[in-house]
């Protein structure tokens, strides 16, 4: 799976948790890098931070949804903005789940498991 966040500490936190859960994880710290990686590895799940340089999470989500080769990729958004409008935009853009920052790694790993079980 793919994890993208511009904050190195958060990126390491998420990847560590997911690796401990036994997932294979690649990471990116920019939106455009994340999109390129997604097209290359076609991950089952992309965990995207909303606020990123290059492309923001919502834009990456939009491009993933527009790309037919990535139809199997589920998207989980991480957002620091606890704004309902962001969440709504996220779901409208085709996100499968979102986790609000600050989140607990355990909570994240539960959401990830749920998402992968559904598909």
């Amino acid at each position, binding site marked *: 799976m793919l994890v993208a966040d511009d*904050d190195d*500490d958060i990126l390491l*936190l998420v990847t560590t948790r997911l690796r401990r859960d036994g997932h294979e994880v690649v990471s990116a710290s920019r939106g455009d890098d994340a999109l390129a990686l997604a097209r290359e590895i076609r991950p089952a799940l992309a965990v995207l931070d909303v*606020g990123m340089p290059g492309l923001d999470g919502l834009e990456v989500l939009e491009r993933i949804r527009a790309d037919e080769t990535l139809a199997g990729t589920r998207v989980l958004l991480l957002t*620091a903005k606890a704004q309902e409008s962001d969440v709504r935009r996220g779901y409208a853009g085709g996100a499968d789940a979102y986790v609000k*920052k*600050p989140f607990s790694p355990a909570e994240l790993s539960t959401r990830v498991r749920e998402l992968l079980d559904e598909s």
Partner: protein
Amino acid sequence: MDLRKELWKHHIGSLFLAGGVALSGLYFLIPRGTPQSVVYDGIGIAASLAIGLGVWLNRPDTRLPWLLFGLGNLSFAVADIIFDVNPDAAVPGLADWFYLAGYPLLAFGLAYLIFHAGGHHRFAALVEAAIVTVAFALFQWVFVVDRIVDGGGSASERAVNALYPSMDVLLLAGLAGFFVTAAWRTPAFLLLVGAVVTMLVADEVYGLSPGGYAAGDWVDLGWLLSYVLWATAALHPSMARLSKPRPRVRQLRVSPVRIVLLVAALLSAPAVLVVQDIRAAPLNVPAVVTAASIMAVLVVLRLVGILRALERIRARLIEADRMKDEFVALISHDLRTPLTSIMGYTELVLDDDLEPKLDDERRSYLEVVSRSSARLLRLVDDLLFVARLQSGRLDLTPAPLDLCALARQAVGEAQRRAKAKGVELVFDGNGSVEVAADKGRLFQLLDNLVSNALKFTPEGGRIEVRVSRNGAAVLEVSDTGIGFTAEEAARIFERFYRADNAIEGQVQGTGLGLFIAQAITEAHGGTISASPRDGGGAVFRIELPAARTAMMQR
């Protein structure tokens, strides 16, 4: 500067004032004729010289206006002497020319001071000064000038006599203009106002008295005091400050005096009409029309100014509000990101699966870090929530939901914390109680109340959460905690308010929880109340409109 001169400077004004007032009183005790004239003319000359002395002592940055005041008063004093030498001279005589020369000198001095103090920058205040001046001019025209013009005497005599009231208008214009500067707070200015006002009053009494005038009449007191006050103003050390430029004050100030003055000015035209009608006197239509028209234009100008100022203020407020929102968003992001790291990594370290295992001591320390950061997060969330509330951006998405089920869930989630603290937490309610509410916010409200009860209830206590309906949906949370007094019940929902018991019992909190609870309840059209529970503790009661009514209200 040496001390003696300083002392001299501070006392000479008071000495002059006391001496001048005493002499003015003496004036009315001595016989009419030459003795009186000597005192009168003496005061006039002394005042003119004292103004010169004041300029020399106080050394103002701008001497010109004060020299003009000195010259103006000297001109009056010379006229007094000429008049006293030959009281029965034909009008216009030499005395009149000296009198009439004095007014413009004084008025120009006042105008010069105003401009120097930056008064002309204050357009709004100048407009108001102009309105008052126009109203005064109307009175002078109708009640004083008209009578002189229609009265007896040669054409030149009437013309010169009519000039006096016109000069008073000039002087009042200078005075009214002065109020627009910040200079009016200095003692020297108050003395100047006194000088001009006593002079104007004397002039008006003189102009309106039908029986003519003879030296020694009471009206002389006004002119005498005016001399004394002009001189005292110049001798007062604060005169040096009077002409200093002052910062512009950009404020919409509406003092009662100002309103009264403006209303009186605007009523002058109808007042003149009524008075002339009652007296059955001829109506000076051009005077009333001119004055009323000028005032109407000035009032509109002033209104436009006020509206523009309001528009500027509104734009600034909108900008400030936007900046506050941005600030909140920034803080939201910047506080939450490091908190995510702190809490997340602590959790990773505390992970049971991690090898090698943590020893108990290290684990207990890290659990403190974990608990503290959770508390910090809650505080940040509360503050952000309140900030959003203050800017009126609590966007709710109400949907029909079962209050009973949601309350049961909130109680369920708090159960672990209750057990840890040794508090019995029970839920009472069955069936479904439909309300239209924002699920996230309502859960926040329920969790808030339950957590609050838990926080204030000591070990061995009991918390009951009850949901019922009696037309409205009712939720009650009662606890056996430390409670609060009946007086405190009224204030308990205020932002940052904390009851005495909470402070003494060192129960942690910011005083935001109940404020938030109230805001959420009211946003849903409900009511929240708190009362002390019989036998100790507290009862919080929330009533929310039942689903159907709530939907209809939208």
